[in-house]
C-alpha cells in the first residue's frame, strides 16, 4: 500500500513539473534569451519597479516621447509632435494608425485614461516620482491631448520618454480583486503598443515575448530584427555564466570584473563594459546627529576626501567605463557639471588635515554600506592608511536607508540610479532638497534646487545646478565617488550595443 502511495506521489510530482516547457535560446531558434538575478511576476511597469520591468516596459509599451540616445533629444513616439502651451501644460498631437497588441486602436482616450489612472495616488503606482508631477490629462480631439502638470516641472519630457507608458483605455478596469477587496492591478494581462508583445508568463521563472509584426513603421524604436525574446530568472551568477557558455541563454549583465575578464577569453562570448547612470557617493554626518562629531569639522571631511583613492577603485574594481565624479550627479544628466571643487588623492595632506583638526592619532568611526562590499572595503583600506579606523556595517538597503533617515550613520557609502532619468533633478534635486535623504539641509542649496526644479529656462537651470553642486562638493556634504559601470556578457552571435541608462534595447539587437 505504502509502496503504491509513494509511486503515485512521485509520478504526480513529475507530471506537475513536466508541464513546464523550456524555450530554446539562440540564433537557430531566433530567440534571444536574457537573464538577470531578479524574479519578476508582475508584468506591468507601474506595479513593478524592478529594473527588469523598466526594460520590459520599454520593450512592450511605448510612451508619448522617445529619447534619442545619440542626440539627447526627445523625439515623438506615440505623439507626432508636442509643445508647451504654458509652464504647466503640454499638448501632444498623437500618431494615427497605431494599434495595441489586442488590436484596439490608439487615440487620445488611451492617453487620458492612462494619465488620469496613474496620477491618482490611490491606485498605488509603486514609483510615485514617475507620475506624481502630472495632475491630469484632457482630450482636445480624437488625436490631440493635453497633460496638465501640478507645477512647472522641467524634467517632464524625460519622464514621459522613459517612465510613462500608455495603456489601452479601460486597461485596469477589469482587474481582479484580492481577498481584502483591493484591486490587483498587477494581474491584468499586459497589452501595449511596443515592438514586442508578451506571449507567456511563467510566474517567477520566465516571460516570453514575440515580435509585434504590426508595429508602426514610423517608430523611432524601429522594427525588431529578432523574432522572440525570453526573460529568465537565474539568481546565481555562476549558473548564469554556465548557461551562457553552453548556449542556454544569450545575454547576462552585472558580471563581476574578474569573471568578466575570464569570460572574455571564451571565443563564443562577447564581453563589454558600459557606463550606467548609477553613481556612488559617501555622505557625511555633517550635523553630528549620529553621535560621532568628527565630521562636523570640515577639515576632517577634507581629510577623508583626500585619503580615498577613487581612481584606483575605478581602475581596479569597477571597470574601464567608470569615471571618478566630483559633483553629486551623473555627467549624463542635464544640469550636471563636473566643474566644481574637486578633491585629489593625497594621503599626506589628509594626515596633515587630521592633525590640524586635533586627530593626530586618528579616530574610529562606522561606515555603513549595502552594495558591492569590495568597493567599501577599498575605502576602509584607504582611510586606515591615514589613521581613520572605519568599521564596516554592511546591511540590507531598506534597513540602511531607515538609519540614514534617522541620521544615525556617521559615514555611509551608498549608490543612486536616478531611475535612469537624465536630469539632475533626479539626483542632486532628490538628495539636497531638505528631505530626509539630505545630510546637510543647507537652506541655500535647497533654495537653488527648488528653483532649478521648477523653471523651464535651460540656461538658468544649468547655472543654478552649478551653484548648488559647487556648494555641495565645496562644503563636502557628500564626497561623490564614481559612476558605476556594468559588465555585459553575451553570445558572440548577438549584435548588441549597451546603453548608458541601463535599459538594454533588445528591439535594436540583431543576430550576427
Amino acid at each position, binding site marked *: 500500500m505504502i509502496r503504491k502511495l509513494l509511486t503515485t506521489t512521485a509520478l504526480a510530482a513529475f507530471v506537475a513539473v513536466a508541464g513546464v516547457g523550456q524555450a530554446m535560446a539562440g540564433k537557430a531558434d531566433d530567440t534571444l534569451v536574457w537573464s538577470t538575478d531578479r524574479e519578476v511576476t508582475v508584468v506591468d511597469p507601474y506595479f513593478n*519597479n524592478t529594473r527588469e520591468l523598466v526594460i520590459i516596459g520599454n520593450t512592450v509599451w511605448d510612451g508619448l516621447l522617445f529619447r534619442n540616445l545619440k542626440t539627447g533629444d526627445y523625439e515623438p513616439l506615440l505623439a507626432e509632435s508636442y509643445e508647451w502651451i504654458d509652464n504647466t501644460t503640454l499638448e501632444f498631437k498623437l500618431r494615427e494608425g497605431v494599434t495595441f497588441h489586442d488590436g484596439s486602436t490608439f487615440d487620445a482616450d488611451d492617453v487620458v485614461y492612462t494619465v488620469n489612472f496613474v496620477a491618482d495616488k490611490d491606485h498605488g503606482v509603486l514609483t510615485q516620482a514617475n507620475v506624481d508631477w502630472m495632475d491630469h490629462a484632457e482630450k482636445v480631439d480624437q488625436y490631440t491631448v493635453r497633460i496638465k502638470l501640478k507645477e512647472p516641472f522641467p524634467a517632464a519630457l524625460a519622464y514621459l520618454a522613459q517612465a510613462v507608458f500608455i495603456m489601452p483605455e479601460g486597461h485596469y478596469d477589469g482587474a481582479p480583486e484580492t481577498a481584502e477587496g483591493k484591486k490587483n492591478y498587477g494581474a491584468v494581462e499586459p497589452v501595449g503598443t511596443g515592438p514586442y508583445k508578451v506571449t507567456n508568463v511563467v510566474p517567477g521563472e520566465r516571460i516570453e515575448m514575440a515580435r509585434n509584426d504590426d508595429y508602426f513603421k514610423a517608430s523611432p524604436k524601429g522594427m525588431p530584427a529578432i523574432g522572440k525574446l525570453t526573460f529568465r530568472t*537565474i539568481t546565481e551568477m555562476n549558473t548564469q555564466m*554556465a548557461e551562457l557558455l553552453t548556449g542556454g541563454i544569450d545575454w547576462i549583465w552585472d558580471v563581476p570584473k574578474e569573471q568578466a575578464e575570464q569570460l572574455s577569453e571564451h571565443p563564443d562570448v562577447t564581453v563589454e563594459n558600459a557606463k550606467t547612470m548609477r553613481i556612488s557617493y559617501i555622505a557625511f554626518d555633517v550635523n553630528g546627529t549620529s553621535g560621532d562629531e568628527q565630521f562636523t569639522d570640515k577639515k576632517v571631511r577634507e581629510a577623508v576626501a583626500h585619503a580615498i583613492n577613487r581612481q584606483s577603485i575605478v581602475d581596479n574594481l569597477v571597470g574601464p567605463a567608470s569615471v571618478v565624479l566630483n559633483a553629486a550627479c551623473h555627467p549624463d544628466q542635464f544640469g550636471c557639471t563636473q566643474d566644481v571643487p574637486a578633491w585629489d588623492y593625497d594621503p599626506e595632506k589628509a594626515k596633515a588635515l587630521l592633525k590640524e583638526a586635533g586627530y593626530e592619532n586618528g579616530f574610529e568611526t562606522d561606515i555603513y554600506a549595502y552594495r558591492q562590499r569590495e568597493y567599501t572595503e577599498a575605502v576602509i583600506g584607504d582611510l586606515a592608511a591615514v589613521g581613520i579606523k572605519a568599521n564596516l556595517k554592511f546591511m540590507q538597503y531598506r534597513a540602511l536607508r531607515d538609519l540614514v533617515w534617522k541620521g544615525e550613520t556617521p559615514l555611509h557609502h551608498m549608490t543612486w540610479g536616478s531611475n535612469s532619468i537624465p536630469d539632475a533633478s533626479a539626483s542632486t534635486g532628490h538628495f539636497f532638497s531638505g528631505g530626509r535623504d539630505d545630510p546637510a539641509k543647507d537652506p541655500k542649496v535647497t533654495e537653488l534646487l527648488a528653483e532649478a526644479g521648477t523653471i523651464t529656462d535651460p540656461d538658468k537651470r544649468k547655472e543654478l545646478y552649478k551653484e548648488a553642486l559647487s556648494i555641495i562638493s565645496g562644503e563636502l556634504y557628500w564626497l561623490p565617488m564614481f559612476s558605476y559601470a556594468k559588465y555585459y556578457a553575451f553570445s558572440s552571435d548577438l549584435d548588441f550595443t549597451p546603453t548608458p541608462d541601463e535599459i538594454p534595447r533588445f528591439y535594436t539587437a540583431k543576430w550576427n
Partner: protein
Amino acid sequence: MLVYALKRLGVAGLVALTVSFLSFSLIYVSGDPAFALAGETATEADIENIRRVYGFDRPIVVQYLDWLGSALTGDFGHSNYLNTDVASVIFDRLPVTMTLGACALAFALALAIPLGVLAAMRPNTLLDRFALTVAVIGQALPSFWFALIMIFWLGITWRLLPITGTASWLNFIMPSVALGYYITPAVMRLTRAGMMEVLSSDYIRTARAKGLKPVRVLFKHALRNAIIPVVALSAVQFGFMLGGSIVIETIFAINGLGFLAWESIQRGDLPMMQAIVLVLACFYIVLTFVADLLNAFLDPRIRVS
C-alpha cells in the same frame, strides 16, 4: 493512542503559530516592508504612499491577527511584492520542491542503504573504509561547491546534463545528487550501526542456524529491523530538504519553495513569509506522523503496543 496523537497535533499547531508570529516580528525588525516594496530609488513620498495604500501603517499585532484570521479560513492573503494571491504561488512552487526533495531522498537512500549494509557485513575491511570515506566526503563537501563542480563537468565540459530549470527529469539529476549527497552520511552510518547490531543478535544466529539462505536472513530478518530508525531519520531529513533546498534551488535556477522563502525575506514580503513558515511547519508535523506510520508498518511490535 488517538488522544496522544491529538495532543501532539495541538502542540505542533501551537509551535507553528509561535514560529509564524516570531518570524512576522523579526521581518519587521529587519526593516520597513514599505521600503522593500518601493525599491531602491523610491522617494519619501513613494514610501509614505505605499505604507498607506498597502496597510503597513497599522499596528503590527493588528496586521498579524488580520493575517491569522484569514489564514485559518484558508486565505493566506496577497503578496505585497508579487502582487498576487499567496496560496496560488505557494501551490505553484510546492510540487517543484517536493519533487526535488523526493528525488534527493531517493538518491540518498539508494546510495546510503546498500553502502551501510555492505559496510556492516564486512566491518573494518577495505569496503567498510570505502563506505566511511564516501560518508566523510559527503559531510565535508559544501553542497553549493559540489553543485558548481557538477555544473562545470557534467554541464559545461561534457554537456551531459541541462544546467537550469525544470523542463525534464534530466534537469533534476544534478540538483538531486547535490542535495541528497548531503544527507547520505547520516543515513549510511545509521544503517551500518543498526545492521551491525542486528547481525550480532541471537535471532539472526538462530535464523542462520536454521539454514535460511544468507540473502533472506539479510533482507527479511536483519534489514527490516535495522531500517526502522532510518525511516524516522529520512522523514526528518525530507522535511529539512524542503526548507533547506534554498542554495540548491538558487544555483540550478529552480523556482521552488526554498528559493521563494529566501526571496520573500529579502523583499520583506510578509504574507508570503508567513504562509511559507506555516506550510513548512505543517510539513514537519505531517512527516513525523508519516514516519510513525511507516515504522508501525515495518515493526509489528509498534502496532501492537
